């Protein structure tokens, strides 16, 4: 069941905003007319295959490529030594502290490999098969080095992940509310509070597992070097290719054609992208590299991977007095594009929707001999939300209080907004009471508690738990000045162009880069309303730096609340320019013109002219007003003044089969407040997908390594991602509290489901089993782990 709230009165007059339109982009995707990067075939194109290290940490003592070079169809084999002078070091755009340490990050390892799967050579051949055959003929001599895989062990520096560094510690980043002046001292709160709960929680390493494996084609034959890549970030990639390889930026064009999902996993500048450029430059021919699914799971960047040491203090009445967070964050072997900043994005979210007087956050970024971590749907915020929502449940248990009541005692009331949090953010709007009330009603909270009681009393083999997650997140990345204050290298604005063509159809160029979200549909709806033109007459262009010259791409639920605002601003500029031309055409004063339904009308007359007519007048330019350029184009850049803060309440009824340990999500209710909705179909899709990924972290997914650092869960046989039969029928609903940081009141929805659902599931599992003595279960809560936790609780008599 899905119900949606009434759209706001303002939206009601605008037929497109709020309308459940089907996606424009689906027709070509579902009829096989898609153009993914791997579909690209260029004349004379060569194919690459990577030779990867089987060892997680080793010195490269020799590489013999003779046999591979003479293999049929092979043109060349490049090693790290061959390209050492030109390959540069892969970029890290977020040095979180001035003294951050990081190893050099060559695309092809030169002297040392630091994770299994690192590229040590590349085969350039006439066919994929020839390239693949030659991989096995490259003879690499390795001298194995000790590996460090466990985060807590790495923190001790007993074994070093890199022989070139004297510590595994990359950086230590601290926020203290007393020092920042945003709150009181955490030491005092912990020392003086009636109740202190201390827990260590684990965020397992997960793999983004997007559907389309990454693929790259580079054509070096024109004036510009053109790269097609399955990327979320064509603009950032272009800049980084220029900086890393020393190519003038004007000589680089990046195209992200159809892209099959990313979830943050394609927010990266990859070794394979650099290597494909090097190969194309060397050979002078177009080159293609498409990773296999095995490679995608093995070396595409991973997410999460944190140890969270938490202390929360409160009064006996359940008023929280302070929160202390001490993180170990697994960087993996290198720093990718924003690896180091991911846990810092979470730093502002541990206090979540609550009014905590004291807060301290400390994060140690640690190297291990695993692939590097980086953005994965939510990026820092799911980790934070998981921690605080688990801790609120633990505190409620300690206090013998209903976990919803504890949350309500501590959250920011709707009449307290705008509210500056203990982490220093200003939340503009929100209504946690309304979302929670709606969720409780849809869930039948009291009825579910009665059923839970009944099953406990009957000693039912299938126990019931209620999982609660109330959350907020910072979206709409991001105000550029805030990013600057956090040492991030770039800004957070977005760019758009609106062009009215002489025939009256509209081109909208956006700098955000869709890879499944539905921008073409949503942007068409925005512009249709603003310009009063039919939805069908709007063409949205994106994902090509030659067409969309400026942009900062798509991640962090930023597209609508930042990119959409740039589109609206550009549309407004078109109207203003059209007004000048229309006044000239109709010999009226601009002040006498009214704009509605795509036409300017002279007030009190029948005289009017359409945008199309004005565009044609501008095109022919026979009679333009003085000083007005002959076109009806505009562009705009929008830099938000604040983040947006979606929030919501998620309730999960969790059945646990105590005989097998199997977990079943019986009922899932989510009420999200994402502000004003442009298209409920797109929102529903984002919520469903987000919930699936969050539930999956709780129950299914984990990147598991053996003692040598080899990925054991290296295929979908062992790395479990759920399918439709494994997920519940979601009950979704919304409340609508518009954001004030943008003119539309939109907040963002790309990550909400993922952020909220993981703690809802785990809290539910524990709520089902706590009365049997189970205190904690590490994610993913596999049947085996659940059963062992029950067995252990039996032997300890249900006491810790």
């Amino acid at each position, binding site marked *: 069941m899905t119900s949606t709230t009434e759209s706001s009165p303002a939206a009601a007059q605008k037929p497109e905003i709020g309308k459940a339109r089907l996606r424009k982009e689906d027709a070509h995707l579902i009829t096989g007319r898609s153009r993914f990067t791997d579909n690209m075939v260029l004349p004379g194109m060569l194919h690459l295959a990577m030779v990867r290290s089987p060892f997680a940490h080793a010195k490269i003592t020799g590489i013999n490529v003779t046999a591979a070079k003479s293999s049929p169809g092979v043109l060349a084999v490049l090693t790290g030594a061959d390209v050492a002078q030109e390959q540069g070091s892969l970029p890290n755009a977020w040095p979180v502290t001035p003294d951050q340490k990081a190893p050099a990050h060559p695309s092809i390892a030169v002297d040392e490999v630091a994770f299994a799967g690192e590229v040590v050579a590349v085969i350039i051949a006439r066919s*994929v*098969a020839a390239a*693949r*055959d030659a991989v*096995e003929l490259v003879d690499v001599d390795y001298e194995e080095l000790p590996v460090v895989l466990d985060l807590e062990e790495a923190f001790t520096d007993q074994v070093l992940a890199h022989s070139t560094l004297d510590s595994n510690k990359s950086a230590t980043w601290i926020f203290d509310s007393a020092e920042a002046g945003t709150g009181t001292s955490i030491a005092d709160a912990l020392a003086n509070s009636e109740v202190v709960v201390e827990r260590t929680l684990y965020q397992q390493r997960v793999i983004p597992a997007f559907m389309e494996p990454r693929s790259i084609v580079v054509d070096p034959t024109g004036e510009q070097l053109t790269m097609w890549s399955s990327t979320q970030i064509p603009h950032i990639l272009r800049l980084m290719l220029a900086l890393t390889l020393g190519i003038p930026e004007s000589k680089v064009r990046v195209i992200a054609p159809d892209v099959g999902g990313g979830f943050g996993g394609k927010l990266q500048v990859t070794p394979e992208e650099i290597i494909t450029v090097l190969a194309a430059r060397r050979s002078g021919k177009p080159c293609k590299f498409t990773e*296999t*699914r*095995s490679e995608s799971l093995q070396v595409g960047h991973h997410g999460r991977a944190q140890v969270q040491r938490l202390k929360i203090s409160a009064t006996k009445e359940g008023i929280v007095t302070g929160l202390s967070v001490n993180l170990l964050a697994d960087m993996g072997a290198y720093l990718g594009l924003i690896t180091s900043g991911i846990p810092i994005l979470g730093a502002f979210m541990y206090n979540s929707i609550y009014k905590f007087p004291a807060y301290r956050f400390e994060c140690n970024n640690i190297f291990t001999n695993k692939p590097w971590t980086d953005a994965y749907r939510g990026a820092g915020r799911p980790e934070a939300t998981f921690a605080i929502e688990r801790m609120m449940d633990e505190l409620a248990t300690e206090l013998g209080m209903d976990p919803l009541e504890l949350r309500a005692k501590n959250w920011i009331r709707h009449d307290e907004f705008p509210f500056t949090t203990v982490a220093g953010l200003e939340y503009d709007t929100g209504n946690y009471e309304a979302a929670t009330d709606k969720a409780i009603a849809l869930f039948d909270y009291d009825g579910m508690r009665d059923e839970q009681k009944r099953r406990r009393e009957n000693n039912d083999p299938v126990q019931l738990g209620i999982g609660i997650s109330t959350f907020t997140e910072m979206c709409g990345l991001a105000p550029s000045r805030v990013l600057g204050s956090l040492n991030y290298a770039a800004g957070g604005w977005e760019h758009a162009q609106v062009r009215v063509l002489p025939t009256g159809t509209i081109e909208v160029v956006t700098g955000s880069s869709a890879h499944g979200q539905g921008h073409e549909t949503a942007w068409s709806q925005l512009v249709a309303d603003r310009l009063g033109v039919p939805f069908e007459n709007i063409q949205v262009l994106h994902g090509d730096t030659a067409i969309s010259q400026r942009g900062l791409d798509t991640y962090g639920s930023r597209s609508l609340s930042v990119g959409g605002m740039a589109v609206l601003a550009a549309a407004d500029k078109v109207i203003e320019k059209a007004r000048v031309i229309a006044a000239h055409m109709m010999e009226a004063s601009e002040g006498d013109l009214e704009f509605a339904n795509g036409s300017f009308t002279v007030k009190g007359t029948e005289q009017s002219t359409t945008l199309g007519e004005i565009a044609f007048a501008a095109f022919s330019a026979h009679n333009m007003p003085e000083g007005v350029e002959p076109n009806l184009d505009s562009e705009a850049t929008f830099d938000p003044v604040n983040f947006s803060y979606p929030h919501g309440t998620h309730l999960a009824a969790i059945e646990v089969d105590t*005989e*097998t*340990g*199997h977990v079943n999500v019986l009922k899932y209710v989510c009420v999200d407040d994402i502000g004003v909705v442009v298209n409920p179909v797109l929102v529903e899709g984002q919520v469903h997908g987000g919930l699936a990924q969050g539930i999956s972290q709780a*129950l*299914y997914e984990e990147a*598991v390594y053996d003692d040598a650092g080899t990925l*054991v*869960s290296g295929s979908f*046989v*062992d790395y*479990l*991602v*759920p*399918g439709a*039969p*494994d997920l519940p029928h979601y009950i979704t609903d919304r409340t609508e509290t518009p954001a004030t940081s943008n003119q539309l009141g939109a907040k963002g929805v790309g990550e909400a489901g993922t952020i909220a659902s993981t703690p809802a599931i785990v809290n539910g599992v524990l709520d089902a089993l706590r009365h049997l003595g189970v205190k904690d279960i590490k994610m993913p809560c*596999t*049947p*085996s782990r659940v*059963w*062992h936790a029950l067995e252990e609780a039996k032997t300890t008599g249900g006491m810790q």
Partner: protein
Amino acid sequence: MIPSAFDYAAPSTVEEVLAMLAAAESAGDEVKLLAGGQSLLPVMKLRMADPALVIDLGKISELVGVSEQEDTLLIGAMTPHHEIATNALLAKHLPLLHKAAATVADPQVRHRGTFGGALVHADPAGDMPAPVLATGATFILAGPRGERRVEASDFFQGYFTTAVADDEILTHIQVPKFTGWGAHYEKFTRVAQQWSIVAVAAMVKIEDGTFTRARLGLTNMASTPLRATAVEQALVGSNATLESITAACSLAAEGTEPASDLNGDSTYRKHLSTVLAKRAVLAAAGL
């Protein structure tokens, strides 16, 4: 995901296959027989197997289909899982195989993958070996010395290893009829699309509220499928009640040493086998 180069042949008779196997053996070439390809092709694409010759059995029509004999059904090795799961003869006389086949992977795999291919592949987590073992079927092999018949209890010899020699192929499986028996295959997975962590195949006959016959097979409790003989013995003669079934099925793991992997350790699998055996027998008994 590109296999090493290999030669490909698609003969239309068993005799031709045997001749090719003999020739390859004398040349020292590795050969793989391609049935439905649902296990072989992934393994070749991952280059965990790189045969010199792949012999496709897909054109040998005599290996496909189910026929009724007096007390048995004769099932061609190349009969797809989908046929096993939908065939009326199987539904009537071999409900266990009928039900187990419906749990194999997904519809696409069930249409391509074959009954005989799954048995010869002998994956300990595969769903067909344990039910077939429980039926006490006879495996009919063709080889250079003519036909050879192997009992199910001798067929599965270890991880991915069976009694089929390099110069032989499995042509048919002859399975006794179990008309009128209750049957169920209880499979446990973490997600719908997954190999069995443990599964239990059960066939029972009940007369006047008492178990008179019981045959149980265990999936993924060892390197080969196993019979749960202790449970079978405990069931026969006992009442078809929850209590006696639970007691009998608590013996399911007796004598087993299952492996530990990402889905569960040996201890968990042993426990799981008792729960799943209970559920399988309850369902087979219609309780």
